[in-house]
């Protein structure tokens, strides 16, 4: 029984958290690709920046002596996401919009976004230093333990309060995004523009407005994902830069331009990475009793050593692209 609980803690919960973060990042990447046709490489750093915005707000609240029944990092999210959306709009206006106005090719925008990556990371290091910070200096991270002794287990299922929020908020974000894309005129215009840019223009769709809405959604979801990641681990300047590759893998696996694909891709990559680095030895330990005398399972039975976790995303990417070149949900191929 303990083995099952170990599995739930290490795989189901961790995978769901990682998957949620990847999914929210990948949705932003895929929306930007669908509307603006370029790979927004700086997306990871927009996540980090969003996390820093949340952190600054939390620090302010702590200085003001504010306490709340929910983690402050969660409490500040609405404001932080709004600020992050404005920052995203500013980045577009300052760096990408002038290039688009000049008719630059997507690869030029990609390079520009690498520049934005370096700039954001530089600015964060300049103002916040290179150190690691925690959202939980001033308040405790509550851990919920679900007693499993009724199943004869001695271990508990344990999940932290921020983790519960993360899973819940991701579900809410996905539902709201779905309602927006299928139920509002602007959301439909967004899908129309991703589908056929020329026809969107011809139909009189306000493409500039759609572009702005895209940045607002991508920027605020990036802030949500970045803050979640920082709440789960710690905050550092290269927080999300390290996961930009699995996020792109998730977006491509889901089919570029396909929001639902990106969400599915995010969880696929998240769970695959978690399963790949999971130490199966812990779960298979009961087998030791039935193995012949003198035999025993090795201590470490992970498929992939933790340091090589990143390769998992690429294996999935390569396999999916070989089998279904436009991704699971048939996205754009350009």
């Amino acid at each position, binding site marked *: 029984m303990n083995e099952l609980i170990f599995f739930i803690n290490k795989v189901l919960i961790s995978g769901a958290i990682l998957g949620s973060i990847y999914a929210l990042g990948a949705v932003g990447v895929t929306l930007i690709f669908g509307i603006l046709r370029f790979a927004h490489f700086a997306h990871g750093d927009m996540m980090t920046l969003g996390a820093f915005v949340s952190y600054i707000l939390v620090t302010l609240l702590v200085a003001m002596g504010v306490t709340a029944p929910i983690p402050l990092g969660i409490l500040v999210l609405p404001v932080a996401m709004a600020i992050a959306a404005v920052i995203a709009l500013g980045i577009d206006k300052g760096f990408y919009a002038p290039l688009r106005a000049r008719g630059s090719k997507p690869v030029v925008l990609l390079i520009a976004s690498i520049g934005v990556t370096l700039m954001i990371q530089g600015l964060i290091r300049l103002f916040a230093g290179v150190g690691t910070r925690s959202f939980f200096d001033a308040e405790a991270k509550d851990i919920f333990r679900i007693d499993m002794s009724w199943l004869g287990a001695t271990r508990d299922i344990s999940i932290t309060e921020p983790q519960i929020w993360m899973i819940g908020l991701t579900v809410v974000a996905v539902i709201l995004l779905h309602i927006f894309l299928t139920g509002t*005129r602007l959301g*439909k*215009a967004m*899908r*129309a523009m991703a*589908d*056929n840019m*020329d*026809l*969107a*223009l*011809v*139909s*009189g*769709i*306000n*493409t500039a407005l759609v572009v702005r809405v895209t940045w607002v959604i991508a920027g605020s979801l990036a802030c949500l994902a970045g803050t979640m990641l920082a709440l789960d681990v710690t905050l550092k300047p290269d927080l999300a830069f390290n996961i930009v590759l699995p996020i792109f893998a998730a977006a491509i696996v889901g089919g570029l331009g396909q929001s639902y694909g990106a969400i599915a891709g995010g969880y696929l990559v998240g769970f695959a990475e978690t399963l790949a680095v999971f130490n199966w030895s812990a779960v298979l330990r009961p087998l030791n009793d039935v193995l012949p005398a003198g035999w025993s399972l090795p201590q470490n039975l992970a498929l992939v050593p933790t340091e090589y976790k990143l390769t998992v995303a690429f294996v999935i990417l390569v396999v999916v692209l070989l089998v279904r070149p436009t991704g699971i949900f048939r996205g754009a191929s350009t």
Partner: protein
Amino acid sequence: MALVSLHDVTAGYGGAPILHGVNISIEASDVGVIVGPNGAGKSTALKSIFGLLKVSEGSIVFDGDDITNRSPDSLVPKGLSFVPQEHNVFTSLSVSENLEMGAFTRTDDFADTMTEVYDMFPDLKLKRHQRAGELSGGQRQMVAMGRALMSRPKLLLLDEPSAGLSPRYMMEIFAQVARINQTGVGVLMVEQNARQALGFATKGFVLANGSNLFTGTGQDLLNDPDVAKSFLGGHQP
């Protein structure tokens, strides 16, 4: 007064001009048909009206206003609609969402217009929740025309609405074009099925190599032996 008129329009895609001083003019009561060989610049002429490429010389007047080089999204609210020759539906959107996108610039309730479109094309009503990409060629053409009608245009620009359609669908599309025209909407369309199209056109324009070759009523062009020989596949008895 003409609904739309092109005066000596020279236009192109950035390189050498494709249109060389083209003149086209129709009234709101007209169905104007542009015919001509492949590559003559027929599509280019429609795109130049709709602001999709640069007009370097000449002018385009619509409904009394000079609209030369205006952007497409500013023309839709003025009463101009365009159905491109290719890729003219949002394939991943449902039929009703396609129609809704045609009404994007409208701020009033467009439910009536949608009902009118469904009355005009009953096939579409049955398939309104289906993705446009899953429809047949003829049905897609209906979606494309329906989308263009949703903004309640004064002038409808159609680029080869019957391309690739069976004779049955072609006749249905032409019948709807005539009916739309009767409701007071001017129509300017490019057609390869020239004989049938000129049959109900009130104005005909023959373009070749980016210039006007003949202009007249539909009947004039049908009866002109030169036009018939060069562009209508032989003179019909």
